[in-house]
């Protein structure tokens, strides 16, 4: 995990940007799926089910509902395969998945966010102190971060506090590794909107992590992390 060099590219972790390689095999499988070849479509599912489930999981924050929504999205994709008009099949699937997430919230009348402040996409006041704390806090130094289960749950919690559109943009960018162009096309919005949603989402997440750090178990508190960092 290298962090310091080059603030243009920023931190480059294990989850590198996903490269879109449609490939002949995928095109063939799509063509066969159009003729309602379920076995061919199942091959496509094998190729993409992890991405679909990951998106559903990060959006909904709960494995069971994510599994249901994933299954639903894949069935919907199979039924609507004729409407796929080239381009990235993965993006197309993820679009259906995000729609399925919004459908789920509508259906279950559950709120897609856990905080009222995040319900709107209103810009939050800039809190310089917070940003500086977060930037200086050793806990959040990517070089020190150990992705333990508790920390994963904490970050997921932070995601759940974002407005759903922000969450979607951030997840597509930082977890699915999509470019701004792809995200704009997928969510039928402008590049500017994507840019602002990602920026706000990241800022909001950062604020949440810094503000609610007491939710983390003790061994994540500053002192120990600092010690480990110095070691």
């Amino acid at each position, binding site marked *: *995990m290298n*962090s310091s060099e080059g*603030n*243009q590219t*920023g*931190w480059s*972790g*294990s*989850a590198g940007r996903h490269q879109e390689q449609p490939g002949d095999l995928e095109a063939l499988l799509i063509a066969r799926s159009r003729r*309602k*070849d*379920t*076995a061919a*479509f*199942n091959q496509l*599912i*094998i190729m993409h*089910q*992890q991405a679909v*489930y*990951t998106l559903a*999981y*990060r959006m909904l924050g709960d*494995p069971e509902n*994510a*599994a*249901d929504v*994933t*299954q*639903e999205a*894949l*069935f919907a994709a199979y*039924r609507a395969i004729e409407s796929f008009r080239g381009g990235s099949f993965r993006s197309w699937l993820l679009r259906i998945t995000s729609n399925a997430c919004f459908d789920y919230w509508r259906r279950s009348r559950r709120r897609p966010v856990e905080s009222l402040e995040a319900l709107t996409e209103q810009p939050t006041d*800039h809190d*310089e102190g*917070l*940003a*500086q704390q*977060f*930037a*200086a806090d050793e806990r*959040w130094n*990517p070089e020190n*971060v150990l*992705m333990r289960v508790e920390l994963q749950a904490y*970050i*997921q919690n932070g995601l759940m506090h974002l407005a759903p559109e922000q969450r979607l943009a951030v997840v597509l*960018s*930082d*977890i699915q590794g999509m*470019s*701004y162009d792809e995200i704009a096309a997928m969510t039928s919005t402008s590049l500017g909107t994507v*840019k*602002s949603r*990602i*920026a706000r989402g*990241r*800022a909001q*997440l*950062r604020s949440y992590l810094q503000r609610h750090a007491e939710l983390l178990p003790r061994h994540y508190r500053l002192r120990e992390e600092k010690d480990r960092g110095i070691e």
Partner: protein
Amino acid sequence: MLSEPEHNWEQRREQLSALLDNELAGAERAELETHLQSCAACRAELESLRRARALLRALPQPALPRSFLLPLEPAAQHASGELAEPLRVGRRPSATPAPTRPARPAPVPLSDARANRLRRSVKVVRWLSTVAAVLGLFLLLGSALSTLSSGGKATTANAPSSYSQNSPTDAGGTALGSATPPPESTQKTTTTQDHATPTEVGPNPAATATAKGSGTNGNATPGTTLQSRNEPGSGGGFSLSTPELGLLLLVVGVVGFVVAAVLRRLWPGANR
């Protein structure tokens, strides 16, 4: 410096965030980079966004709770009902659709039309073999009973020869030998020969019909046609007796069953 009025933080943050992703155009980017050198607040903002992004990127992929493969039913047949059902299943976490046939490596998929035709011919073969086998058993038992009741002693001159003439043509004959008492049936041949000849004209077409029925599926053809050709070939001095005919029908029936089973194993799609 930190709270300069021209610092539109909303816009600034967007720029910094886009800078992280290499999504900032040349001029804007150059300007921002020079600004960063002199502005600590923006550097802190950039670093904090970078960390937030790094944490998200470091999240491992959640483990798949199950496989999401669709069931392999031919969807064309009952499109509406079939697609509606798994959807319902999908919503209930308890009733997970089991991935279909994980054990068998996916067989060569058949098109629906071909699968239908195959299914039908397998059914016909099985049906005809059943008829043949039942008829054969009936004839065998009937002749056995009649010999028992008449209790006739046999002159075994030509009976064994006709029996051995027939049996080597089919491998199934040896297996059947244990099921039906062979010495008795050979004895009967001579005693019932006179009565048998007219009756066997009746069942004979059935035998050739089964041969044709199973013949459409390749495997059974050589054996059965050989048998049916035997009759006219030896017709000059020798005609088939009732127990032999029964045996032959039984063999045809068994072969038919085997063919049907083989077909089903080769194309499981034809099963349903």
